[in-house]
């Protein structure tokens, strides 16, 4: 198997189904990155993410999605604005709050929802769930359960792509909390030192779970990146077009060999840190603060730019797409427990079982 190539090891899930294509199998056609080149398309993607997350919240409540999610609601402008600046060969590394990023990149919501439901039709065949959604064909190097961990992965991909002569750019998304992870700061240095085509996107939503960024980040986010020689800009993360403009500039510079860039997108999550939070009594944010940020919701702004009518039509289109996605997800079979250890090794090595017969 060549490195990086899809490693399709025999799986118990598919073995029983033989070779006949089935509706519940992951799509074999090459997926394509989302086109976000017009305000309409960007609005549609904002709505897709928003509605996807709302649907996911319902499915968490109803128990279809096990374990919960970190909802992206409120931050959509960042994912859409940044992904609008990317081309087909580019890559991205995402976070625990990654649904928006992967959808904006073009991951089929049906496959993402099937993944959240733990089905074989999911992007990761039900093996990854919310925090590990990946699609290498789209350049999605994976969401990540560990804060800050995605950034050096993106840096490595950028390094590799540059070595092969490609002008691809890699984006690393991360939160304000990640600014205090050593490995992220190490990554700033390597990317800067080697002038790698990386765009670091910090989604500063003001909190790392309950910890306010103001009590956690000494200095400033942009100052921190700038200290490594990385051009850094602060952007209104509730404004899709502002994010896109800033991202396009940084991506163009990186693509042209100008080295990494850094964006601090000031944004807010309208929901709790994780769906679990609904069951707790936490008081780290005031209702007034939440309300004030809700006033800055990126969707109405983007809708205004294209007109209410057009927006409503796109909303309908998105609703239909998501209804179909849910149908696909729920129709997709649960994976066969006999294949629980499938894919553990790309070499096909089968681990010893946990008990002898």
């Amino acid at each position, binding site marked *: 198997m060549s490195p990086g190539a899809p490693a399709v090891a025999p799986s118990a899930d598919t073995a029983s189904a033989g070779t006949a294509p089935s509706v519940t199998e992951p799509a074999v056609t090459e997926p394509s990155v989302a086109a976000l080149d017009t305000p309409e398309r960007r609005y549609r993607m904002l709505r897709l993410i928003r509605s996807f997350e709302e649907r996911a919240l319902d499915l968490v409540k109803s128990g279809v*999605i*096990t*374990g*919960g999610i970190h909802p992206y609601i409120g931050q959509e402008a960042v994912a859409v604005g940044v992904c609008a600046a990317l081309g087909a060969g580019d890559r991205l590394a995402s976070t625990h709050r990654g649904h928006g990023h992967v959808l904006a990149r073009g991951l089929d919501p049906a496959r993402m929802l099937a*993944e959240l439901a*733990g*089905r074989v039709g999911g992007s*990761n065949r*039900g*093996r*990854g*769930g*919310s*925090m*590990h959604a990946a699609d290498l064909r789209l350049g999605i190097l994976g969401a*990540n*359960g*560990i*804060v*800050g961990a995605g950034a050096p992965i993106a840096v490595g991909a950028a390094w590799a792509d540059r070595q092969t002569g490609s002008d691809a750019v890699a984006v690393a998304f991360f939160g304000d*909390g*990640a600014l*205090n*992870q*050593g490995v992220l700061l190490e990554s700033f240095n390597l990317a800067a030192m080697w002038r790698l085509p990386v765009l670091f996107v910090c989604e500063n939503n003001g909190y*790392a*779970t*309950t*910890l306010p960024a103001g*009590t*956690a*980040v000494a200095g400033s986010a942009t100052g921190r990146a700038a200290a490594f020689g990385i051009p850094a800009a602060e952007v209104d993360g509730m404004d899709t077009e502002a994010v896109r403009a800033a991202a396009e500039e940084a991506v163009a510079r990186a693509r042209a060999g100008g080295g990494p860039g850094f964006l601090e997108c000031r944004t807010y999550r309208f929901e709790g840190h994780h769906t679990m939070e609904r069951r*707790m009594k*936490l008081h*780290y944010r005031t209702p007034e603060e939440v309300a004030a940020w809700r006033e800055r919701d990126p969707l109405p702004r983007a809708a205004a730019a294209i007109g209410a009518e057009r927006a409503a039509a796109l909303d309908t289109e998105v609703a239909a797409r998501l209804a179909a996605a849910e149908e696909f997800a729920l129709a997709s079979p*649960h*994976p066969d*427990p*006999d*294949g*629980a*250890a499938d894919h*553990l*090794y790309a070499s096909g090595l089968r*681990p*010893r*079982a*946990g*008990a*002898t017969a």
Partner: protein
Amino acid sequence: MRLSYTKALNRALADELTADPAVCVFGEDIGAGMAGPTLGLLDRFGPERIVDTPLSEQAFTAMALGAALAGRRPVLEFQIPSLLFLVFEQLVNQAHKFSLMSGGQAGVPLTCLVPGSGSRDGWAGQHSDHPYSLFAHAGVKTVVPATPTDAYGLLRSAIHDPDPVVVFAPAAALPVRETVTWELAPIPLGSARVHRSGTDVTLVAVGHLVHDALAVAEELAGEISVEVLDPRTLYPFDWAALGESLERTGRLVVIDDSNRSCGIGAEVLATAAEEFRLTAPPRRITRPDGTVLPFAPALDRALQPSREQLRHALRAVMK
């Protein structure tokens, strides 16, 4: 009194904080008491002793070492078992080694607490490890309490111990509640607990699996007399207790939620084979080698030790 496992950890922390002003707690979202064990402690003990940290696990673990050398007894709460991977250097290469390398100048009384180790439904590959065997190998004192009383008593002893200790509170044990009619007290590290005596097989069970072990032992009571031994501390292990039990039974089964190769299950079998009386080949039930728990619940469960496997193993060693 009806005591939950999490409440037991919470009381142990509060009691140690009260008893010794040197005790302090570092961790993420501990002010809010997100994970449970630190609930209410910020209000009671203040931000000088209950320290909400930025997401800098490596630095705050090494800071705890420094604070310990300066006279404190820090407790660190980790939200995810695999965060221990992130601080392996600070814990094993620095804190654990300090005493010997300094020629015995000081111990490092530092306790790491992982509330919710092992699988939690839906948390998938990076949040579901049960890496206690790594620390037993490295030689860091390693504790995995199964019950609220043990959680209370062992956490207190861990905090009191002059060396680094890692305490794993298995997610699957957190729902356990106990009716406690006695006064809670510290329980020494390194002492096993026989939950149930038996004469046919010694069943060593770790953490939450103690409860599965007891259920299966009860279920098979008419058929096999199973002694359920909970080591409680995996390192140092109470070898004397194991030896005594095997002296009676001569048969051994271990049920252990860590990966098979080089796990604590391997250690128990190896030591028993070397040093104790075995009248039949021993058996262990573990996760498979190199396990990464998949997200889908049925796959996740398929890779964890099961009662079915346990029944089978108990019957097999009786043949």
